[in-house]
């Protein structure tokens, strides 16, 4: 092997490798620095490192690179997706700061960041893979550390229970996924996406079973109905920062990966997976909503809301077009800001008071006007009320599905937004209208948390109006050539 190969690898896999370097760096800092230094600076260093990785390596270029004989593919669009994930992760890290540095958690602080970076690395691999084995490695790297993260709170029993539930479900769904790709191998004799794309033109029973298994494996991560049942329990029990991470970053990465797998591997026979997705989307959006309206625990509530959001996200995949891809990435970007704003508020209040019930939020506006406003914006954006970003992301993703001819599907999705509006507004009503004699006392947000929230709110307000963001993504997805 000559050295030019290494330099190519370094050049093309820069974001992955730099992320690993950052992780190792964090590891050593955690190991050798003094506790006082760590208390003061460690979280900041982690954020800065991730921001640096983003700035150096996640700015989309203009060329497509392949490595390892096509197992690893890096296009401008994948880089943009990684950038989106990084932005979200930085926001999660900012919001996790006060929890991770609390007395109970700070012993394990290093692990939190390192595990999170590892999962991010796994997601990078999923997005950039051109081969099912790389994809599977990415999937597992992105899944297993999350089980540890979910079980991060050592005091409460809930956290362990959630961790165990996640692990069992993940392992089981991985098994189904592996089964699916082994069927694929049996049919085509290869695990390269492009080879399978050539072999998969015939609609045999084996092919359909394999496809269903693969969809099930990724659908688990996306929490599509009926693979979603773990979601609520895990979200409720896990630490709020991890739940936030699961609900936006992990879901976003899975959506991106799903998009690539379907586009690269199964684009010759879209009618099969589109048929399956059609049903799954309706189930996901509707059931997610139906469960969400019953929830009293805000984290559980957001779990179901995120299930139905996954359904909307899948509309972009359904479109099977460049417009759909743009709309999907844009949707996830907006979703990151909106959902993290909601989780940021919840995390802040949970940290200080331990309250997560919707009834506890009654009259929050009197004592915490700024947090209430942030939460209100988040809810409006999630529900898709103009002029906030969520309206535009929903509009674009519906438009992409309509352009591909799915009128009835979009109609059902639209009807569901009405239901979702109801439960999102319940939260707003609790904060602003419901009377409460002793509302939650005034909570002071830490500096990191406040920065995170301000960025989220700014994102909600600006992303929709600044059309250049969508235009930029649109330009990138046109280069993919779907």
């Amino acid at each position, binding site marked *: 092997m000559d050295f030019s190969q290494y330099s190519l690898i370094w050049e093309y896999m820069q974001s992955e490798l730099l992320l690993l370097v950052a992780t190792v760096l964090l590891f050593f800092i955690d190991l050798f620095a003094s506790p006082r230094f760590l208390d003061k600076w460690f979280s900041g260093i982690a954020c800065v490192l991730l921001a640096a990785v983003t700035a150096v390596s996640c700015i989309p270029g203009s060329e497509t690179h392949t490595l390892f004989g096509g197992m690893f593919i890096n296009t401008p669009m994948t880089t943009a997706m990684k950038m989106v994930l990084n932005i979200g992760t930085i926001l999660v890290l900012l919001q996790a700061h006060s929890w991770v540095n609390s007395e109970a958690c700070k012993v394990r602080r290093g692990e939190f960041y390192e595990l999170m970076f590892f999962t991010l690395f796994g997601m990078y691999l999923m997005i950039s893979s051109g081969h099912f084995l790389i994809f599977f490695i990415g999937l597992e790297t992105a899944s297993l550390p999350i089980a540890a993260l979910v079980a991060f709170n050592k005091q409460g029993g809930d956290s362990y229970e959630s961790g165990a539930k996640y692990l069992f479900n993940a392992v089981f769904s991985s098994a189904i996924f592996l089964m699916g790709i082994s069927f694929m191998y049996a049919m085509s004799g290869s695990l390269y996406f492009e080879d399978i794309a050539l072999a998969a033109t015939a609609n045999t029973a084996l092919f359909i079973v394999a496809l269903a*298994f693969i969809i*099930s494996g990724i659908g688990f991560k996306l929490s599509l109905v009926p693979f979603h049942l773990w979601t609520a329990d895990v979200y409720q029990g896990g630490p709020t920062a991890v739940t936030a991470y699961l609900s936006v970053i992990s879901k976003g990465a899975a959506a991106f990966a799903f998009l690539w797998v379907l586009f690269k591997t199964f684009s010759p026979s879209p009618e099969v997976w589109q*048929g399956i997705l059609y049903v799954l989307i309706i189930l996901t959006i509707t059931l997610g909503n139906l469960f969400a309206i*019953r929830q009293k625990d805000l984290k559980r509530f957001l779990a179901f809301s995120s299930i139905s959001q996954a359904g909307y996200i899948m509309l972009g995949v359904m479109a099977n077009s460049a417009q759909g891809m743009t709309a999907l990435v844009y949707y996830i970007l907006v979703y990151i800001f909106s959902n993290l704003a909601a989780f940021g508020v919840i995390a802040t209040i949970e940290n200080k008071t331990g309250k997560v019930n919707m009834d506890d939020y009654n009259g929050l506006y009197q004592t915490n006007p700024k947090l209430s406003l942030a939460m209100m914006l988040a809810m409006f954006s999630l529900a898709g009320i103009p002029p906030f970003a969520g309206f535009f992301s929903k509009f674009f993703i519906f438009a992409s599905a309509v352009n591909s001819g799915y009128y009835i599907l979009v109609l059902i999705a639209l009807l569901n937004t009405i239901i979702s509006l109801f439960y999102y507004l319940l939260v707003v009503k609790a904060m602003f209208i419901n009377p409460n004699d002793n509302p939650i006392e005034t909570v002071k947000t830490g500096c990191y948390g406040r920065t995170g929230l301000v960025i989220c709110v700014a994102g909600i307000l600006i992303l929709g109006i600044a059309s250049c963001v969508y235009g930029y993504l649109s330009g990138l997805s046109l280069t993919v050539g779907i």
Partner: protein
Amino acid sequence: MEYTVFILLLPLAMFLLLGLLDSKLKPRVAGILGTLGMTVCAALAYFTAYQFFTQPRNAEGVIPSVTPYNYEWLRFTENLHIDLGIYLDPISVMMLVVITTVSLMVHIYSLGYMHGEKGFQRYYAFLSLFSMSMLGLVVATNIFQMYIFWELVGVSSYLLIGFYYTKPAAIAASKKAFIVTRFADLGFLIGILILSFFTKTFDFATLTATPTAIITETAGATFLGCSVASWALALIFMGGAGKSAMFPLHIWLPDAMEGPTPVSALIHAATMVVAGVYLVARLFPVYCVTPEVLELITTVGAITALYAAIVACVQTDIKRVLAFSTISQIAFMIVALGVANDTDLHEGLGYMASMFHLFTHAMFKALLFLGAGAIIHAVHSNEMSEMGGLRKYMPITHITFLIACLAIAGIPPFSGFFSKDEILTAVMNKSTFWGIWMTVVAGLTAFYMFRLYFRIFWWKNTDCSHHTPHEAPLTMTLPLIFLALVTCVAGFIPFGELVSVNGQPYHIHLDWSVATTSIIVAVCAISLAAWLYLKENKKPTAMADATRTLHTAAYRRFYIDEIYLFITHKIIFKGICAPIAWFDRHIIDGTMDMFANVTQWVSARIKGLQSGYIQSYVWILLMGTLLIAAITIICLL
């Protein structure tokens, strides 16, 4: 000329700064900040005008228009996209100067006038918002951008009319202004949509470059006997008529006088209300391909001019008189546009005259309003009966007000004479009937303005009120003096050289037959006013009694407001809205309640799925996967 973007950004920044900090700023600081921002803005606008008008003309002798900044905001299709940009041509540059000048004067004036008012900072924030919106409106590169800013000026106008939000009359007036103009804007929006549907563009430059294309595009498409192009342009004019308070959509403007007086000067005299005129001027080449719409515009304008002038003769609230005078003067501009044509410079005289009058009117009407503000400030009342003999107490206000009255009456050498003379010439060229009509209106203008002037400053000799009125502070008199100076010299600006229908320089020459007639008419009207109102006497009352019916009708504005109330309350509310409301409350809400109940019911039934047991989760996961595979196989194979 990229710096022109700061003319928009600066007031926006001021609005955000003052609006967000609000009471955290001291009132004084807020006022001075706002004024400074506007000063810079005005300086930039003057510099833009200087640079623009001194650039070399092209081969046809036209000053080329410039688009220094353009940002594509939304793209729907290849042709249809909404841009935000800055388009500079003679009329938009002229408007930049007018708006920033008047706005700056109002900013300075308000420092004195609004001193000590509650919400002083909010007031300045709104003023900045308005200035930004109005400037954005005039520099719009496309009709949709104009629409956006059009609505923004509507909002700022609403906010400023209702500035004294504890006063019920002010709230009612702000609502009325908003609803009436919004109703007109509905027509505007529909017009835009029809126009862009056929022309596939929003862009002004494209629209006005090949106006005949719209005829070929819409060829054959007719609606109720008129071509679609005419409908679109008439609907667009409806939006303009609403903003510019043309009959019968004028009803909001007199009520809008409930706002602070400087606001009336800025928004309801000099800038926002001429937006309709500006809109027609902006699309003028397009209007020229539909002569029937131009005729409609002429008729609407002429009726409005006469109507408002008659009503203005009998009002007793000085701001109402000025409001109706504004309506009448704007109608002059509209009529001038209606009789113009873009075939050559001579036919297009009306276009130039209209823009010229817009310019001079903005200055002297702002002066009149600011003067009225000073008077109201001194006597604490809007009613004429409370005034009289003020010339001794307020010399500066008196002189400046007199200059403005002479200008609007059309007495040389003040600015109004020149612009009004051009309008009358243009109208006379087109049709003698409208020419005589407008000359009569000009006479009425001179009469009611001097009625106002004599009632305020002469009439009584001794002052019988409790305290002696005194001259306004320097912050208020300075803008008056400045605007009076402008009014004295503005007539001598070679306006035709800068603005004309096809951009070529046009040398203004007075048509002496028209000029002499109008001067004689004006002098007669002024003499009549002097005879009636110079000294306190019984002649006006006697005259009113002699023409009781007409006088009352005019005083009640010919019952237009009552007709509106009858149509909305008695016919629309009772006859149409009530049944719809019933349908909405019972049928639609009932259906929605049913959906909600079904949703709740289903939701309660399926909660068992989420049992919390891993084994059942995994079971459902596996079964779900297999079921999906099975169903797909059955369906596809």
